[in-house]
């Protein structure tokens, strides 16, 4: 096995077995771990506190206990998080941060208090009016409040220098990931829909600094190779996330590569760089003002244009909508950007996904017919 394959398989291993990966990195680093619910949490502050921010993005698990709290029309990712919290999967975490971006998350935050009382909860509110100064001030106050909570958990004070150092780690991570997603276009066979996802996802279960170094190494190794020939389709994928793995396999089988993504779990995490500001906390707050996402107020509804630009920049053949079922913020964006994509004559494939779906037969067929239809054009 050559080193590129080995590296990729390591990433895949981490992503597929998060609990194992997290236990391992905790042991190696001697750090405590803090669970970070989607979509944005101040990971920089967790890291500055000398702890590991761990991404909690649901997963495939049978829903039993979570039904005590949530009706069946709750998004699968949150049902899974509550289920795993209740059954002890997250017990190795010293705390969880739950932000309240959508109505579902507000309720999850509240139910957590009774459903998973053994894991310390740090609720957090990100302002929606983040482009006005009152919003930035509020955001900074929230960061400071959460910082104090995290200091309690870690048992040590976080200095300004700790924060600035951590921001630097994260800025390097973001820049590295921006480069990573851009080179997919040159190596779409090696970095296919599946491997690309697992490589990006591994960040959530690693120490950011060493993870970034590994991705940089992978990029360097890849760059030594000539660009790969690829005769399949290239698409831009948008949504909360593109899972389960069976879904990604269908893309690989049909020779469809992800030229770029607008997924909350992937590029939305690292496409926005740090903001300007006098203090670390202000830099973090101003970064949020520049962030665009279905979870953040945007009366200009820029998502359609963002997708059109991604298609053009990456010479993509179309857009795949990976719609998380029962997700209000994403479902509201869809009719607007759908119209814009249609006007721009960009082909689109709409898939409704749930994390718990195992027989993705219907979806498989739809991906296949999309590939065939595109082939004819």
């Amino acid at each position: 096995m050559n080193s590129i394959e080995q590296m990729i398989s390591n990433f895949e291993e981490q992503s597929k077995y998060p609990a194992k990966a997290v236990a391992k990195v905790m042991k190696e680093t001697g750090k405590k771990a803090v669970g970070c619910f989607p979509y944005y949490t101040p990971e920089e502050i967790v890291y500055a506190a000398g702890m590991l921010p761990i991404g909690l993005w649901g997963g495939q698990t049978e829903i039993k206990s979570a039904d005590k709290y949530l009706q069946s029309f709750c998004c699968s990712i949150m049902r899974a998080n509550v289920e795993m919290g209740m059954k002890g999967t997250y017990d190795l975490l010293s705390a969880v941060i739950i932000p309240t971006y959508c109505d579902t998350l507000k309720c999850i935050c509240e139910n957590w208090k009774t459903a998973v009382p053994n894991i310390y909860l740090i609720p957090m509110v990100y302002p929606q009016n983040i482009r006005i100064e009152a919003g930035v001030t509020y955001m900074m106050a929230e960061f400071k409040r959460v910082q104090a909570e995290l200091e309690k958990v870690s048992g040590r004070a976080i200095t300004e220098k700790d924060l600035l150092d951590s921001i630097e780690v994260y800025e390097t991570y973001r820049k590295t990931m921006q480069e990573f997603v851009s080179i997919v276009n040159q190596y779409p066979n090696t970095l296919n829909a599946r491997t690309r996802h697992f490589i990006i996802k591994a960040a959530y279960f690693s120490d950011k600094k060493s993870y970034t170094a590994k991705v940089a190494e992978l990029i360097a190794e890849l760059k030594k190779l000539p660009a790969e020939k690829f005769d399949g389709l290239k698409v831009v994928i948008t949504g909360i996330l593109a899972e389960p793995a069976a879904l990604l396999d269908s893309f690989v089988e049909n020779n469809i590569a992800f030229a770029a993504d607008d997924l909350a779990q992937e590029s939305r995490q690292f496409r926005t760089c740090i903001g300007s500001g006098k203090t670390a906390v202000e830099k973090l707050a101003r970064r949020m003002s520049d962030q665009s996402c279905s979870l953040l107020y945007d009366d200009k509804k820029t998502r359609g244009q963002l997708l059109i630009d991604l298609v053009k920049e990456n010479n993509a053949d179309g857009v795949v909508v990976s719609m998380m079922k029962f997700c209000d913020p994403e479902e509201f964006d869809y009719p607007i950007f759908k119209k814009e994509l249609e006007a721009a004559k960009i082909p689109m494939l709409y898939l409704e996904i749930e994390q718990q779906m195992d027989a993705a037969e219907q979806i498989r067929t739809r991906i296949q017919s999309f590939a065939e239809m595109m082939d004819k054009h």
Partner: protein
Amino acid sequence: MDQKVSSKDLLGQMLAKHYDDAIEAKKAGELVAWSTSIAPQELLETMGIKVVYPENHAAAIGARKCAQEFIDYSESGGYSTDLCSYARVNLGYMNIQESIAGNIPLPDFIFCCNNICNTVIKWYENIAKELNIPMILFDMPFNHTYEVPDHSVQYIRGQFDHAILQLEEISGRKFDHDKFKEVMKISSETAKWWKKATALAAAKPSPLNGFDLFNYMAAIVCMRGKQEGLDIFKLWAEELQGKIDRGEGPWKDTEEQYRVMWDGIACWPYLADTYKVLKKNGINMVTSTYPDSWTIVYDSDDLDGMARAYSSNYVNRNLEYGADNIVKIVKDFSLDGVVFHSNRSCKLMDFRTFEVQRKVHARTGVPSVIFDGDQTDPRAFSLAQYETRIQALKEMMEENKKAEMMEEKKERIDG
């Protein structure tokens, strides 16, 4: 004898006028805003800007049983069936612009406050985008703490200031701070009378058949900042007090046997059905979470207080508060049971219902049931299921009553 106008007649007249005025204003080239139902309307009233409330309008469309047409329109444009049906009705109406339930003019700008849910941000963003009009947003941070924290109050105040600038820019007029104080006073006063009137339902038997609440709610939404609104609630309170004094219950033909509260929004397309099933079982819906939702009370000129009041809507507060709130209602209104509406539209209310139900039961011993429905989408409700659940509730309440009577008898004998 002096033929006095009843509050119900007045309500009808005033609501008709409310909609007519908005349509006339639009024709005359004046500004019209669309606003969420518990937004700081004080700012708009001060500017003399006409407002209509899409939630109210959607509810009216639902009650007239003509929501499906609008829902179909939205869904054909890509809106998911799982989204709030008020949004689906309204976004459909925005294009169709004609309904037998009455019409509203299209807005010149959007006025949105997320103290009821974050769904309204997304819904209103889409209106702003589709109609290419400005949007004013009041973001009220979710209170995971019991009370509203100070930094949230500061943030909301900052947004009031920003909104005033936006309004001045949109209208090209100056904001009149003296008038603002005046409007703050009336709004607070109206809210107090709304609370006062609805609180009279605590009498036994209750003078109020709670489904009337759903009707009067339209007025508290649309007319909170107006003298006419205040007048309606004063009159209503007077009428209810009169009924109490005369010992009159909610109905002329039936006795009130059980008293319940309704948690959540009404099922507008099945208003009569849901009502009849309760009445048939001698169950009076005495109150709901509505009275408190519009009890936006603060001192005139106290902007911090106003910010806090708006942010304090129970759905914007933590689960502990939500449970305490219902426990208090159960006690204050001497309730025998609670009916929870698991409303497919409203995730913010639904995903706390199960835990709130457990907490309320543990602390009051009062039985409750949950039924599936939707506020405006007629497809999500089953009358059969509803009847079964209400029947079950009645049985549980009956058991409780019997046990209580036994208890009393025992005490009498023992004593």
